[in-house]
Each structure stands twice: as C-alpha cells, then as structure tokens.
C-alpha cells in the first residue's frame, strides 16, 4: 500500500503539469482542464496495478486523460472559452517584449483553431516530445497519417503566424 502511494505521488509530481498542459490544449478551458487532470489521476490511482511497463507511464496517463475528455463530451459539450480571455495568459507572458507577447497569443489562438485531429498529435509532439511512432501507437493511427497531420498542423499555425503578426504589430 505504501509502495502504491509512493508510486502514485511520483507520477503526480512528474506528470501533473504536463497532463494539465495536454488537457488545456485539448479542451481550451483552464477550469475544465484541471477537472480532467483530477479525474484522470483519480482513475489512475484506482487502476495503478494495471501499469506494468514503467517506461510507458506518460502514454498510459495520456490515454486515461483522453478517455476522460471523450467521456466529458458524451456528458456535455460546453462552449469553449477563448483562452486569451484569461488573466493567467497575461501573467504568464509578463516580462516579455510586446512583440513576443503578440506572437505567443497568435500561436495559442492558431493552436486552438486547429481541428482536434491535427491539434492532438501536434501537442503530443511539441509538449510531450513523443516520436511519430509513439503518437501513432497512442492515437491508433499509422505513422504516415501522424506525419501528415503534424505537417499540416504546423503549416496552418505558421500561416496564421505570418498573416496575423504583421497586422497585430501595426496595431501595437
């Protein structure tokens, strides 16, 4: 029991922030993201005995979180709040040059504007450092499909960055 508790504490310490970021960019709402992470870790605690491979802890937690997110959509489909409306976004970027602040907001907005099938593999690569093969395994897709989705996702985000930066800078 003590070993189980220690293992769980280690999982929370190592992955709660990453899981929160994953949840946030999946659902686009900070409060819902925190609920998702809480629910995912509660489920992880109950099913900790199923985690056999210590090298797959992160992928295991992400799968639980994805399932929680899917369940949430079965229950209710909330209107997403624009992530840039939140005060945390301003405070997170405090201290940056105005141009950098603008760039980050454009990137975040472009990320949330992506369709989920493009957004999710990109989050997994950028935030979690997963290889295309690992993403393919988690999302149950072919590796080629993952590569295509990441390519298109980055192209879309880049286009948004190029288009919007100039007009935003002009407004500064």
């Amino acid at each position: 029991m003590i070993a189980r508790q220690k293992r769980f504490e280690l999982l929370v310490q190592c992955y709660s922030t990453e899981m929160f970021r994953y949840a946030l960019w999946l659902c686009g709402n900070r409060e819902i993201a925190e609920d998702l992470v809480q629910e995912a870790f509660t489920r992880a605690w109950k099913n900790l005995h199923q985690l056999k491979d210590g090298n797959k802890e992160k992928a295991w937690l992400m799968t639980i979180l994805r399932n929680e997110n899917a369940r949430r959509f079965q229950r209710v489909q909330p209107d997403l709040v624009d992530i840039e409306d939140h005060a945390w976004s301003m405070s997170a970027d405090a201290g940056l040059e105005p141009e950098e602040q603008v760039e980050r907001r454009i990137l975040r907005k472009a990320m949330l504007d992506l369709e989920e099938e493009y957004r999710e593999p990109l989050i997994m690569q950028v935030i979690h450092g997963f290889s295309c093969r690992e993403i393919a395994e988690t999302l149950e897709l072919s590796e080629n499909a993952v590569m295509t989705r990441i390519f298109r996702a980055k192209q879309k985000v880049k286009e948004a960055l190029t288009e919007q930066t100039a007009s935003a800078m002009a407004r500064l």
Partner: protein
Amino acid sequence: MNELEFRKRCIINPDDPDPDFRAALANDDYRRVQAECADFDEKLLEALSVPAPEGLQDRILAANRRPSFLARWKKKLAALTSLIVTLVLGLTLLLRPQLALSDMVIEHLYHDMAVMYSRDVIPEEHVDEIVQHFGADLESSLVGIIRFIEDCRFADHRKGIHLVYDGQSGPVTVFYIPHRQIDRMQAIGKDEFQGIIFPHHEGSMAIVGLIGEDLKSQKSKVEAAFDWTRASVQS
C-alpha cells in the same frame, strides 16, 4: 534526398534521427532550413508551456489519499448498516444448522461464479496482502497466473481465502477455510465442476476445477505454494 522532401521532413521533425536526413544537413542551405524549423518548434513549445494552477499536485494527492467528508459519512453509514446486517445474520445463524463443508464450498463457488472468468492479472503485492493476513506466504509462480484473490466470507459468515488461477483445463479455484477442519480428503462436484477438500494447516483447503482437471497435480502445486512458517495466524 531532394529539397522538397527535406523541407517536408524538417517541418514534421527538425530533429529527425534518420541517417539520410542527418547526412543532408551537411548542406549549408539545408542546415539553415533546419534551424528555422527548430526555432519555430521552440517558439510553439514556449507558447504552449503555460503554468499549471497553483496547488494542483496537492489537490490531486489530497483527493486520492483521504476520503471526502461525504465519503466519510457514507463509510459511517455503511458501518452502521453492516452492524445491523451482522446482528440479523448472527441471529439467523443461531437458528440454522451448520452447512456441510462441501456444500459451503460449492455454494460459495456458485455465488462468486463471475470471478472464475476474470482475465485480470493480480499483482503480487495484493496476493501477499491477502495471504499474509491469514499468516501465510504464497509462492505464486508455483501455481500460475493468479486471476483473483480475496478474503471472502463464506456461508457461515467467517472468512477464508478465495483464489482463482489458470489451471491446465481452465480456471482452478482454491478455498482455504481456516475455521473448519476435516479428517481426510473427500471429493466434491456439481455440474461441470469437480474438486477435493482436504486437511490443510489449521483448517481445510478445497481445490475445484473443470471436469478433466488434474486435481492431484494441482493439489501438489498448491500445497507447495503455501508457506505457513509465519509465526502468528491473524484470522
């Protein structure tokens, strides 16, 4: 690798470990493209790496360590219900003749039939937790994959070990009943099940499998797997 192919792969993953991709980086122009793509990924990572809410870890740990206020009240209510049920069952028990051991085994087998078809693999820690409560150790590798183990209450409302593992012809169920003794081995059976009950340690043990299961060999395995050298029996 042509330029188009290089650019595409560079956008997908500027740190692509593929040898052809790494070799192409000897070209200065390609290296510049790679640096731009890596820079873009870095910017994206910085933009997405938002801080987690303060105290998130503590809230997760607290939620999974201590039952909530409501849960604690539910627990108290459950304990009260359990006390009432125990009193009622205790009175009922006084008025009822004791079941034969063989009938008790068959009754419990049918009562918990679903666990026989469990495909869970029970972790060693849980197996140890249950058997050690009865003062034993179990070398589970001697019997096979354990699919279920719990300290079950039998029809006489006293506890014993209920264990299911993969036998040669299907699931094999083992009951250790510490509070009931038997003089010698006896056969039991019902429908597609056959089994044996025999004296074991301070009580009795039952092994039940599907018809065709080699019970003699399972008995040897199970007896070898249980080690009763622990000093105190806490059941």
